[in-house]
């Protein structure tokens, strides 16, 4: 089973992007194999970016983003949410990993993986997850 990071969802829906082909291939391969796990943080970030006119010329309408996210529910094998155990674990190790600013979201995703025993992640942001020894495989579309 794989966690998919927010950037993969963005590039999978940006057909003019240089990362589009590789990101969408790995994204749909994982869906076909029924190995997709979506985390609530990823959904919220995806919505925030995809509807933001400051990030792109053609942001999605709210209705389109909502519809897309609803379809993600249908193809994901599991939806994961933060809980108290994950928060306790993650914040216990913030100093060890020197977590500041927005890195907290990487950190919460990583410790969600630990909590749910998920060892594989797809992201273009490899360097920020390499430090977590419990993440055994980081797939980076090239």
């Amino acid at each position, binding site marked *: 089973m794989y966690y998919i990071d*927010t*950037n993969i969802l*963005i*590039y*999978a*829906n*940006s*057909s*003019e*992007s*240089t*990362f*589009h082909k590789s990101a*969408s291939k790995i*994204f*749909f391969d994982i*869906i*076909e194999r029924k190995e997709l796990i979506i985390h609530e943080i990823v959904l*919220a*970030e*995806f919505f*925030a*970016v*995809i509807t*933001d006119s*400051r*990030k*792109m*010329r*053609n*942001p*999605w309408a709210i209705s389109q983003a909502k519809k*897309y996210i609803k*379809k*993600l529910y*249908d*193809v994901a094998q599991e939806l994961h949410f933060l809980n108290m155990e994950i928060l306790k674990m993650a914040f216990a190790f913030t100093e060890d990993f020197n977590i500041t*600013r*927005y*890195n907290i*979201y*990487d950190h919460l995703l990583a410790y969600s993986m630990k909590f749910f025993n998920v060892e594989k992640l797809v992201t*273009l*942001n490899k360097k920020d997850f390499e430090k977590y020894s419990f993440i055994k495989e980081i797939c980076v579309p090239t």
Partner: protein
Amino acid sequence: MQIVGVAEVTPEYNLKVDENIKYKLHPGEKVKIKIEYIEYLKEEKRIAALEYLRKVSHHSKLGLFNENITREDAHRDFSTRI
């Protein structure tokens, strides 16, 4: 005691058990359950959703101002101060 039977998930996410094991249970009792399989009724919905995602993926041109999307892009908002 081990009882093997099939239960149906109701729209309220309660479990409705088969009649043949119902008489062995009593309301309010706590039982430990182990799910051996899930009969996926959503397969058609899943396939339709996959087709939709593929179609959107193929046609969507976001026109990213910065090709390198980072996590910060999802959280930074200059219009608010938190």
